[in-house]
């Protein structure tokens, strides 16, 4: 078990913290923030996986995931700002 496997484990724990924050809230802004953070963790995990499996093609996903996470977070923030429905 190399360093990169340990790193992936730490990222999994970080993702778990985001899931706990999505479940417990307490506000919808917290949930939008946890979504943003989970996309950051996803981007880092895809980068580490590209190194781990020696697959440079996975790097293409990183840019797409970055922009997707940003757009999703801004859309969620706009929904939260409009108030509870």
């Amino acid at each position, binding site marked *: 078990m190399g360093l990169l496997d340990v790193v992936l484990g730490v990222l999994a724990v970080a993702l778990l913290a985001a899931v706990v924050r999505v479940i417990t809230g307490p506000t919808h802004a917290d949930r939008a923030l946890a979504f943003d953070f989970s996309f950051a963790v996803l981007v880092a995990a895809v980068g580490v996986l590209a190194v781990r499996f020696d697959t440079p093609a996975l790097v293409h996903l990183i840019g797409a995931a970055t922009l997707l996470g*940003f757009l999703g977070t801004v859309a969620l923030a706009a929904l939260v700002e409009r108030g509870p429905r």
Partner: protein
Amino acid sequence: MSVQTVIGNGLILVGVVLIAVAAAGLFRLPDVYNRTNAVAKAAALGVTVVLIGVGVLLPGRTTIILLVLAIAAQLFTAPIAGYAVGRAGYRSGAQLAPNTHRDELAERYSQDT
């Protein structure tokens, strides 16, 4: 182990430690504004450092170009996302932590506008 491997693994380790700090902040800090602070700074910096480490470990023209684009996008968009979430939280009435000293926005802001 070559120098390249050591530097790349070290950068990935530093970045993941920063992401872990952001996760601890997201888990433990008292209100949504503090958590926004932790995630917008530490997670964005952590992802950037991890991606630099990936670029060191996987050299190649295409990889480097894609990683530079991704890092630039990350550094431009992460503060905007954090700001948007904080603003949405305030406008939707998220409570501040009980030990907050001042709310300077309260006297300049009305719920109607």
